[in-house]
């Protein structure tokens, strides 16, 4: 049931007319120089908003968009995964119904992260898209350790 991912985020944003090729090139150059994730670089450069990325992923792959700011997460559920995993993959579990774990992700295309969460939780993961900054705020809020 894994979605087939065949396009890079940059291409998707160009297709949707949010950025142009030159901007993508600039972002890629910057990534080459300083490292980091392409999405975050484009946000930093002001080419896109975090919401644009989330919505692009929603539109392309059908991941539901979850504005985390309005959401209250159960502490116990958050701690299904250790804080280091949440921080590294930029993810946070927000709900668990039966054997289904709802996971807010900045990049729902990170299949390996989903696999890891499934491995440690023993649940099936339902991925939602959220903006990076929302997830970071939620992580800082629910995981006290750094």
């Amino acid at each position, binding site marked *: 049931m894994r979605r087939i991912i065949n396009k890079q985020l940059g291409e998707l944003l160009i297709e949707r007319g949010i950025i142009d090729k030159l901007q993508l090139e600039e972002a890629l150059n910057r990534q080459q120089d300083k*490292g980091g*994730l392409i999405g975050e670089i484009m946000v930093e450069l002001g080419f896109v908003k975090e919401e644009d990325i989330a919505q692009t992923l929603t539109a392309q792959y059908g991941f539901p968009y979850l504005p985390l700011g309005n959401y209250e997460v159960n502490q116990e559920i958050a701690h299904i995964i250790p804080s280091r*995993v949440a921080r*590294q*993959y930029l993810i946070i579990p927000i709900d668990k119904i039966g054997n289904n774990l709802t996971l807010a992700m900045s990049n729902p295309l990170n299949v*390996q992260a989903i*696999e*890891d969460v499934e*491995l440690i939780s023993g649940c099936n993961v339902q991925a939602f898209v959220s903006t990076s900054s929302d997830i970071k705020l939620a992580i800082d809020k629910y995981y006290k350790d750094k």
Partner: protein
Amino acid sequence: MTKNNQSLSLESKGLRYRLKIAFYLMLVLPFLAYIYLVSVFILPNVGLRLEVVAIALFSIFIALAGFYVVRGVVSRILNISSEAKVIAAGDLGRKLEVKCKDEIGDLEGSLNQLTQRIRSNIDELKIYKDRTNEIDLEIQKRLFVFSTLLQISSLILQGAKLEEVLKVTIVKSKLLAKSTIAYLFFRKETSDIFLCKVAEGINSEQFLGAQIQPQDPVFSGVISEGQALIIDSKGILQEGLRTELYGKFGIKNTLAMPVFSRGSVSGILGIGNTEDSFLYKKDDIELLDIFIKQLAIALENDLLSHRLEKLEIKDRLTGLYNESFIRNRLGEEIRRAITYQRPCAFVLLNIDDFSKVETNFGPAYAQEALKRIAYLIRDSVTEIDRVARTANNEFAIVLPERNKRQAKVTSDEIRKKVELSFSKEDGADKKLTVSGGVSENPLDGVTAEELVNRARDALRQAKSLGKNRILG
């Protein structure tokens, strides 16, 4: 006839004999006069006449006086002769007393001169002999240093351990300048204190482990200014230092010089003895300096070879990376994984019951098995993965971009390949298998150490559960 002539001749007789003959001959004259007087005056009118007796006595007196004069001459000649014999026998200290300024006096003077000349020539010869001995000693010394240098260089070339080179240098240094001790101090890695690591000789226990502060009154000049330290019976000003040295190390004289490494003093090589009156020569300093230079080369060589070891990244047997490389690499991959929100996996593989293989089939077979397993591992991973041999029978793999599930799949493929490859071997002990432990960043930790420890725990568990399996 000739023989008769010879026996009659006086030539072969001694002067004493000739003197007797001369005396007898001289007696003939008064005897003849006496006969004449007796026959002319006494025999015709028998009766003692005073003047006859007086003449007879006078002539005997004259003969005796003549004899005395001749004897005086002859005895001096005889004296010269016996003195000459003594001188010829080797007693050149003798000197003849020149009593008169006659020919015999000249002879005595000449003999004295001759003796004097011979004596001065012999003295000169003695000086030459002493000098030759000195040169000989010098040559011996140089030869000794040269052979020592050769010995030390060949040790360095053979890649001998530094401790061995130091020991030889110390033992040879001790042979210089009547030394009873040779010592070597090294600067501690983390401070300016010098510690004695090697000492050879009678007071070695007082040196070994001893420490010298940079401001030590005796050695501060060597340490801070890199000067040679000479304490012997020469300088009165040094008495204080000498007492200090004796109190601390039980030696009265010492010659110590700095060993330079990378522009600073990294050690002190010294020799010493307990003689009350002793002076170090220029030679001793020069020779010790040569040893010091050789020592510096040995130290530099050791430093470089250690650096080289650190720079080495490959295992010589299998051509895989080594332990330190893979650990660094794992750290780097983890940092990259964290930045890019990706996983990174680490695998430890250990050959089951490998010690039995080494014992039963020897090191050559064991090495072949290691190479074969190394090949099977490398054949099962991608180009971005890194494989290392981390211990005799242990391998490690860094799998970037792979999570635990994927790493376990890869490891299990390797396990199966090894099992299959060795299943064709004859004998149960040759059918090698591997066990493995898998860990992953971020699941098991965010540092290389955490991942290695976690993988090792899993590996231990795999072994305890019956080997030939991968756990994580």
